[in-house]
């Protein structure tokens, strides 16, 4: 289990500084939230509530996309797609409106900037990986990294320019071939992983976020080649703090767990994740 730092969630009202539809159905939301911006790290997320309505009732989880804690006012950004009633409601909010944030939640990415960095993003997986990318570049400005962005079609590839702007090499794949290479994002990645020497593999770190199928495929390949690999998982959430036990992922249990440690083979994605080492998960 990766413990970057134990999340100490707070409740903060955040006001909307900007809210842009960057592609059809994709939005970039900038929130003034000083406490949250100063505390949150890449890989962590917030549970957002629009108002006190009963329907939709649950908060929605969003990974942090950008963190500007030293800015004035400190702000964070989330990148989201309208996929249902909660996100549709959010997308209607104008600048100046306030939302309630619960966070930071989750464990964040372990940053291994001394290795060759490869990011693999499927769909909205770009969001937390961009926050990670910015943090890596800050720590190691001379390091280059590569990001593979996969989407169903052209309109689903958001954020490519942003990665380019921070110095990442960008490889795009779309299932229908409308942008970049045709096919799944796992294909070029598998090829590259296969081509690495043992030494190169040991000096590479892969961070992946996207659909479950993509993650299991990449995780298996990375483990087979001795490439350090971290995945950010997604599950439906209610509480976000590890109380309801709704958002679990199946993990490989140890042979002899220490006394008192939960022997359940399920771990909450919200507290013991969302970032897991590839080898921890029962794929």
């Amino acid at each position: 289990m990766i413990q970057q730092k134990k999340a100490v969630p707070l409740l903060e009202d955040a006001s909307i500084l900007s809210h842009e539809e960057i592609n059809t159905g994709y939005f970039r939301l900038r929130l003034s939230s000083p406490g949250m911006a100063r505390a949150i790290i890449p890989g962590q997320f917030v549970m957002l509530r629009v108002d006190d309505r009963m329907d939709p009732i649950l908060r929605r989880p969003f990974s942090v996309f950008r963190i500007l804690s030293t800015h004035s006012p400190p702000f964070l950004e989330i990148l989201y797609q309208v996929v249902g009633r909660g996100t549709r409601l959010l997308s209607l909010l104008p600048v100046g409106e306030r939302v309630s944030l619960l966070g930071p939640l989750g464990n964040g990415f372990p940053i291994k900037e001394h290795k060759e960095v490869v990011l693999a993003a499927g769909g909205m997986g770009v969001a937390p990986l961009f926050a990670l990318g910015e943090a890596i570049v800050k720590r190691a400005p001379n390091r280059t990294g590569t990001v593979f962005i996969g989407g169903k079609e052209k309109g689903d590839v958001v954020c490519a320019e942003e990665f380019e702007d921070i110095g990442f090499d960008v490889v795009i794949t779309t299932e229908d071939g409308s942008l970049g290479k045709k096919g799944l994002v796992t294909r070029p990645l598998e090829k590259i992983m296969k081509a690495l020497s043992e030494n190169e593999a040991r000096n590479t770190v892969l961070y992946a976020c996207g659909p479950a199928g993509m993650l299991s495929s990449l995780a298996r390949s990375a483990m087979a080649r001795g490439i350090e690999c971290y995945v950010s998982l997604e599950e439906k959430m209610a509480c976000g703090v590890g109380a309801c036990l709704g958002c679990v992922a199946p993990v490989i249990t140890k042979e002899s767990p220490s006394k008192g440690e939960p022997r359940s083979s399920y771990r909450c994605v919200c507290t013991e994740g969302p970032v897991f080492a590839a080898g921890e998960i029962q794929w």
Partner: protein
Amino acid sequence: MVTRSKKISLKVKIGGLALKNPVMSASGTFGYGEEYNSLVDLNRLGAIVVKGISLEPWPGNPTPRIAETTAGMLNAIGLQNVGVEGFVEEKLPFLRQFEVPVVVNFLGKSLKEYVAVARKLEEVEGIAALEMNVSCPNVKAGGLVFGTDPKRVKEVVKAVRKEWSSLLIVKLTPNVTDIGAIARSAEEAGADAISLINTVRGMAIDINERKPKLATVVGGLSGPAIKPIALRMVWETVQAVEIPVIGIGGITTAEDALEFLIAGARAVQVGTANFINPLAMMEIIQGLERYLEIHGMTDFRELIGSLKTS
């Protein structure tokens, strides 16, 4: 700002247990306290009811375990828990740092298991009460839920009563025809108090995948959607028994809590609301004080059961 001449009291007793206020967390919605520690001052709560524990750790169900519904949610967690030993060693020490009474919710797949858990907890210090979850299927009786049969409720409560000397609360399932009969059985078997309701059986379907939204197909509904059902059952139970009744079901505000208290509940538990607004219980406590102030009452016990039905 109104200057109070007399101090407002939210104190209430459930059997021998004195609470500073009638607001508790509902089992399964507040973990073991540590999860919400940075957001909620645990010392201000009337009591904490922890996630239910079984004899051995239970892994719980595969996902999806939760689904949002209109003004509520379905859950099929499957009672994942760390087991009695895990609870006593890992979770209880944290809670014992606080002044808040700890109520341990517990469950079992057979009568023997309920008895074994109660027996183990009897030896443990720092537990104010047990809350017995009878919404579990009895695997020895073909999976029939204990809490749906008055005879089985009586049997299992009686057996547990022998093992546990402090306050024993029995938490009832609403998925029955006659809640009064079930409550009476629990009372006859020696329960000190009744808490209700647990979740209401429900389901939801993903129309694009044409699959159930929960891995187990059917789950339990909670949240504001169930409040009218819960309130009615609490009222019926208050009519049926003499022992204190604790109301649970869709409570998110002080107004909701007041409905249950007026119907006769001595205390309330707050569940799903914690997910949406971690400050819900704090706000309810403050709201109750404000209500008493506005109505010129100093002791909230004047409200309990003050429903006028004629």
